[in-house]
C-alpha cells in the first residue's frame, strides 16, 4: 500500500516537472526582447518579451502571442517577478508612459501595448509593479 502511494507521488512529481518544463524551454527558445526600461537605474526595471507560440497559420488561425513582462528592483538581491498578458493574435510594444511616483513607495511602470484580436487592433495601457500587472484603461 505504502509502495503504491510512493509510486503515485513520484509519478505526480514527474508529471508536474514535465508540465512546467516546456514553458521555460519555449521562453528560452522563442521569446523576443521588444523593449526595456530606458533608465537602467530606475527603482523598477522592466523588460518586455513577445512570446509567440510554435506552429504556423492555418487559414485564419495563427499561433497565439503573449507579452511576458519581467520586473526587477535594482540592487544585489532584488525582488523580481514575471507577468504575462492574455494570449491574443498579436501583441506589440508601443511606448513607455509617465509613472506616477507614489510618496515613500516605488511607483508602477506604465506602458502601452497594441493588441490584435480577430483582426481588430486596440491600444491598452498597463501599470506593472512587483505585485502585479493591471490595465489602466
Amino acid at each position: 500500500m505504502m509502495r503504491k502511494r510512493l509510486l503515485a507521488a513520484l509519478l505526480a512529481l514527474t508529471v508536474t516537472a514535465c508540465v512546467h518544463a516546456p514553458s521555460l524551454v519555449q521562453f528560452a527558445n522563442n521569446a523576443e526582447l521588444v523593449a526595456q526600461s530606458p533608465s537602467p537605474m530606475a527603482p523598477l526595471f522592466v523588460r518586455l518579451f513577445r512570446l509567440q507560440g510554435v506552429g504556423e497559420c492555418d487559414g485564419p488561425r495563427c499561433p497565439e502571442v503573449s507579452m511576458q513582462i519581467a520586473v526587477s528592483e535594482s540592487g544585489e538581491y532584488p525582488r523580481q517577478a514575471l507577468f504575462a498578458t492574455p494570449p491574443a493574435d498579436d501583441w506589440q510594444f508601443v511606448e513607455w508612459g509617465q509613472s506616477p511616483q507614489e510618496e515613500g513607495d516605488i511607483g508602477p511602470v506604465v506602458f502601452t501595448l497594441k493588441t490584435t484580436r480577430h483582426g481588430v487592433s486596440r491600444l491598452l495601457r498597463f501599470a506593472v509593479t512587483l505585485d502585479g500587472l493591471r490595465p489602466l484603461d
Partner: protein
Amino acid sequence: MRRHINTLNGLITLINDDPLAPSPDLPVSSVLAQMIETVVKTTNLSININSTTGGVHSPRSFHYHGQALDINRLDGKRIDDVSNGANVQVFQQAVAAHIDVAECFGPFINIRKRGAQVEQRPDLRIRHVNHLHISSQT
C-alpha cells in the same frame, strides 16, 4: 557625477583581494564616495575597499553603476576576524544611519533602503560574513 574616493591620507585603501585582478580604484558615484568618506571620518576606522565597479555581481547590481562597493578589511583586520567584531558593528551602524544608504549588508546589519523605507534582510547575513556590501541610493 562620478569621482575617485578620497583615501583620507591612507585611512582608505583600494586593493583588490585578487592580486591578478584590476584595481578597484575607479570613479564611483559622488554620493557613494561622500558617504563612505564621511563614515570613515566619523568612526576613525580604516578600511580596504576590494571592489567597486569591477567584479561579478547580480545583473541588476548597483556595482555596475558605480553605486556600490565591498569592504574586506577594517582597522587592518579581516571583516570575519572575531576580534574585530565591535569595530565592524560600529562601522555598519554608521553606514546604516546614513541618509544616502541603499544597501548595508554584513555580519551585524542587513538592510535595504528605498527612500525612507527600510527593509530588514537577516537572510543575507550568511553571504556577508567576510565582507561588507554598501551601496548608495544615487
